[in-house]
């Protein structure tokens, strides 16, 4: 089972994680790979944390990834990245949207936001990429395409040809949002820190 790539996508309900993981599955299908995806929703629509796990390989059985076996953690929100950092393999990569969404426990004063979040993230992950996906999306004119910016960044970590990604996006995004989504994907691919 060593050929399997394990990807965990985490964030907050409403951030477009489910579409992103559907696109990822579609890429795997187009690439002729086997794929399994598992998602937790239920009460996620009510502001809870959301996770989708995708596993891609020649033959995949389990829809879930064992703790500590995620190769790429794609976090759409920074606190969630820390919450799920332990899912990563020791040399795994964390792609983290540099956006903070305060949970009600913090906004109502019951809990404190960790002010040393960036440092703790750096401690918890060996390969951390903080991506200003919200800024990029807003520059493109719509905060909702954060998910495609993150997918663009993810695509650089994977072997699949860019055309497969574009084809997958084209088949799953509504036509009237397609151009914007493809731009966001491209922006996620071309963004470089410094």
């Amino acid at each position: 089972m060593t050929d399997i790539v394990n990807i965990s996508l985490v964030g907050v309900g409403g951030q477009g994680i489910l579409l992103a993981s559907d696109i990822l599955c579609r890429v795997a299908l187009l690439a002729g790979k086997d794929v399994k995806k598992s998602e937790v929703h239920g009460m996620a629509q009510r502001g809870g944390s959301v996770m989708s796990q995708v596993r891609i390989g020649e033959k995949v059985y389990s829809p879930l990834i064992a703790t500590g076996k995620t190769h790429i953690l794609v976090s759409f929100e920074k606190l969630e990245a820390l919450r799920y950092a332990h899912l990563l393999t020791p040399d795994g990569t964390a792609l983290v949207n540099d956006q903070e969404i305060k949970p009600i426990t913090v906004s109502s004063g019951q809990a404190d936001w960790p002010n040393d979040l960036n440092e703790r993230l750096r401690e918890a992950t060996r390969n951390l990429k903080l991506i200003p996906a919200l800024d990029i999306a807003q520059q493109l004119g719509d905060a909702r395409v954060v998910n495609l910016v993150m997918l663009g960044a993810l695509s650089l970590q994977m072997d699949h040809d860019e055309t497969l990604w574009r084809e997958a996006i084209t088949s799953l995004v509504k036509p009237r949002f397609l151009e914007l989504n493809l731009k966001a994907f491209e922006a996620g691919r071309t963004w470089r820190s410094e």
Partner: protein
Amino acid sequence: MSKAVPTNRKVLSGNEAIAHAAYAAGVQLAAAYPGTPSTEILENIAEFKDIYCEWSVNEKVALEVAIGASFAGARALAAMKHVGLNVALDPLMTFAYIGATGGLVIVSADDPSMHSSQNEQDNRTLAKFARIPVLEPADSQECFDMVRAAYEISEQFELPVLVRTTTRISHSSGIVDLGTFERRPRGDLHYKKDIARTVMVPLFARQRRTALEGKLEKLRAFSQNFEMHRIEPPTNDRDTGRIGIITSGVAYAYVKEELPSAAILKLGMSFPLPERMIREFAASVDRLYVVEEGDAFIEEQVLAMGLRVEQPKTSLRIGELNPDRLKRFAAEIEGREPEPSPSPATDIPARPPVMCPGCAHRGVFYALNRLKATVLGDIGCYSLGAFEPLYAMDSIVCMGASIGNAHGMQKSGYDGERIAAVIGDSTFFHSGITGLLNTVYNKGTSTVIVLDNRTTAMTGHQDHPGTGRTLMGEETVEARVEDVARGVGVQRVVTIDPYDLENTYNVLKEELGTPEPSVVVSRRECVLRCRDRARCVMRVDETLCKACGACLRLGCPAIEIADQAQIDTRRHKVRINPVLCAGCGMCRQVCRFEAICEAPRKQSL
């Protein structure tokens, strides 16, 4: 555009695959009541326009409707979450005697670990109890294959068949080869009057009881050669002694990855079991284990065959299985130390699900909290009203339970003066009406509050009799809670807008204090469906805010502590997050200093 992919290969969730199977198997009628994790089965069936499908008012009715179709010789499907089968158990127990004419498949989506449920019962036991076969798909492909096979079995043995999924089957996706994906034409089965088979008076029921045992005998023989059982050799040659694992459903996937050293007997049908196959498999290994998600359902049957099943210390009972649990299990039975599993940081603020900003339920629970009422609750989003700061719900048992619970407490001599039942609109139609009739008939005095948000919100906004629309998108008669309440004899029926906090409080105070049964209909559309139409948001004028904390008692996620540095003190000013605010204005009503006012709403972030 997607030329490279043959159209017969798709990534489908288990629920989507079941819907595709229903289409391919020529199912003519499908009925369900929404319930996580089963809901998407009917939502996807509705995409296939040539299947009649409906949201039935509850699972019992859904199964009865499906039985009617089977009587008529049509293939039918009833889908429900695990606890839904409790509701539908009455028709199932007797329909097993009658037996299917057109194939009838019941999909039970169990929810081990209770991701979105009140218990985690294993419904394979209910199928055995009813003496009907159980199939257990292990992934989306098997959902597609097994549901189609289930129709063949159902018609061959004239029995309903239970297909049992669990959350990780229903809500996980994989590649499904749909083959030619042609819809099977309707067979030549049709209704034939035969009262000795279908009229279950004692005389005939006794005969059918015996006939059912005969069918089970034949099914046992069938199970021996069922093509969806299979034996797989170990996939590596690690020398751990000859370990044999009997498994089924999603457990197979975990066994396959975590125990490559084991021979596997993967069962497709977990009742009745292929006894000879199991005995031969047991004889071929040194140590036999059973790995299954839920109860020891297969294991107890194997033990009853007199076979030895090893009992490792690592328990697989309680909660869903996952790779981590199977890693520990594998390490123990292979005599290894388990790999250390990294643990999560513990001091991270939780992100629990919350009642949405602008949720209309908030107005009712805020009033109930102030009234210090004893509130018997029910199943739905409003379960969130049980928690701080609203803290205004005392119980949740099952769909429709609130009304009977409230009546029983009131009749018991309980000394709380104000007893209320709260129930959602969809839940009221599901199983609240009989409870309400009972309260009226038996001269109860409890108050029933129907939280009518015009949809089945919890499961993702499905229609129900009160919405005036069907699953197939047609307009229909709109049932009104007020009319139903008056129809069962309630004299006091009041309708309120829960956004009007003062009126909500006053009406509830009066109704809770009245010594006769009353129904309060709290009507406001679910905010998730009308949020985009909000014309304004609320804003706090910090110069007027006295940091009294009154608005925080609403528990609205849009109201935030303004200054994080002040958290140590007990008083802090607030601000309102304009992105989250739905403009309901409840906070403005509770502010005594007029510090909260309207502001125009911006379209996006």
